């Protein structure tokens, strides 16, 4: 893979919240153009923080990148504003939805088109989003706050798509979605990736799904990347299987039957 193809290059970044809480301890990763890269890891591993660092949304959380660099197509972006990044095609779908509560679903989507000027394009995008998520079309006039959790998630993803992005940072898209919808969402990811060549950096807990749709994966724990590799490689790794896929040998083990004693992940001290 030549350097030209790398859209996003995160190089040894450290992130500190509130001037004291060190969360990322030197994270490096690269995202090649036109690929789907998954960022996996347990709760609090720092996935969200990494995405925020890339999309410049750390400031609002009183966090800051203190070391390392982030490059988008060779350009340093640590000090850009989020809107600069959206102009450059990078958009983040935030964890926990964050719909505009008082706006209707349709207004939410249109707000996503803020950076677009071409009316034709906007309405085409809107149609596209409605095609992907018919449920949103049904609820288009409801205020976002009154829609269900799943509907809000769809709204957030749809809203990001309205910016016509080339790189999408997806933070836990599957959270709280019904299995069918999860499937749909990932299908949409694959679709966009294949048809429109949109690059995805995907933070997910649902390792199973993520590895099925991703090309490459990074596994994070406690603010560090502990493992990376092509998706199918990871899928067959014994540790990954046990800890992230819930497989013991070839069998999925029932949630009803397991011991409280468990092997510790060896990369955690």
């Amino acid at each position: 893979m030549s350097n030209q193809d790398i859209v996003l290059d995160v190089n040894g970044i450290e992130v500190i919240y509130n001037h004291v809480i060190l969360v990322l301890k030197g994270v490096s990763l690269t995202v090649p153009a036109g690929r789907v890269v998954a960022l996996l890891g347990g709760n609090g591993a720092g996935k969200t923080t990494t995405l925020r660092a890339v999309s410049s949304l750390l400031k609002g959380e009183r966090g800051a990148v203190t070391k390392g660099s982030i490059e988008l197509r060779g350009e340093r972006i640590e000090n850009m504003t989020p809107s600069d990044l959206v102009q450059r095609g990078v958009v983040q779908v935030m964890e926990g939805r964050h719909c505009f509560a008082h706006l209707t679903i349709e207004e939410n989507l249109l707000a996503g088109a803020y950076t677009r000027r071409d009316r034709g394009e906007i309405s085409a995008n809107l149609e596209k989003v409605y095609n992907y998520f018919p449920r949103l079309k049904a609820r288009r006039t409801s205020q976002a706050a009154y829609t269900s959790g799943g509907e809000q998630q769809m709204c957030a993803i749809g809203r990001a798509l309205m910016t016509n992005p080339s790189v999408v940072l997806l933070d836990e898209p599957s959270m709280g979605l019904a299995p069918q919808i999860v499937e749909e969402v990932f299908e949409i990811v694959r679709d966009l990736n294949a048809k429109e060549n949109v690059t995805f950096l995907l933070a997910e807990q649902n390792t199973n799904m993520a590895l099925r749709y991703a090309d490459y994966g990074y596994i994070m724990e406690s603010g560090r990347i502990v493992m990376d590799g092509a998706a199918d490689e990871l899928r067959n790794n014994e540790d990954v299987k046990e800890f992230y896929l819930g497989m013991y040998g070839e069998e999925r083990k029932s949630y009803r039957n397991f011991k409280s004693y468990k092997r510790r992940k060896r990369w955690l001290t």
Partner: protein
Amino acid sequence: MFYRENGQLKTSYQADQQIFPIAQDRWAIIGLVLFAIVAVPLLANEYTFSAILIPFLILSLAALGVNILVGYCGQISMGSGAFMAVGAYAAYNTLVRIDGMPLLLALLSGGFFATVVGMFFGIPSLRVKGLYLAVATLAAQFLSDWAFLRVPWFTNNSTSGSVMVSELQMFSWRIDTAVEKYLFCLGFLIVFAVLAKNLVRSAIGREWMAVRDMDVAAAVIGIRITYAKLSAFAVSSFIIGVAGALWGFVHLGAWEPAAFGLDRSFQLLFIVIIGGMGSIMGSFFGAAFIVILPIVLSQTLPALGNLVGFEVSTAAISHAEFMIFGALIVWFLIVEPHGLAKLWSTGKQKLRLWPFPH
């Protein structure tokens, strides 16, 4: 390296529930209180007492009350001045209307009436929230401004509308000099600070905070929202009322409603937010900041002006004071939106880790 809590293991929950679980903190506070009681009276001069320390103590007390309502229970109030006024005038009336009324009782009755009024104005909080409530509390402020100006009964029919209290005496102790006044206020502050601290770390304190953070969830786990809100209004106005009575009786001696006007309400809110919402300690930090800053500014600016070689007029100083005050507030909020208390605890946290970063 010095500030370590290692090795201080708690063997009982009682120990863990102390106000200052870390020994160093505990000793520091005890030392501070002793210093305030014993050393300060020896060191400070009269000006420091009457112009800085006494207002500082009383405003800290009032801020403590405001903090309970605003910081702990999350009901932003811009009418605290009104509750101070109620406290002051109620205490005044009990004192002059009932023969042989002891000072202490009069002050507490100020608190009592402030509680009654506070609970009354707390009723809208059951329905109205957030900024709407904040603005609505101004109703209390303007109503009190008006009532104490226009209803002669409250001022014991004083023609000018200004009232005064003389000869403070508690039991056989005549509170005359600045030092005595200082100690008197300090006593109140210490007692109320301990009581307030006890409350906020007890069941009721948790109810207040629960209502503040997420009232629907609070209701679901069985917290009575009405009780929590009204009790916050009650406790808070009691403390504010006593502070108001002290402000009138001890600090001013003679006062008019303007002493408890809108500016006072804002000042208290400032103290709480700059100091740290939801922090008892913050009330003190905030009060120190707000009381001392203008005085420091008005005294140092002329000197600074002289240094660079021109005479700064009083007007220019006071305009500069406005500007610096405003700018500092903004600056503090930017540096630490959670107030000086948070800054303090972050500092302590760094100290704890020192010399190892993070």
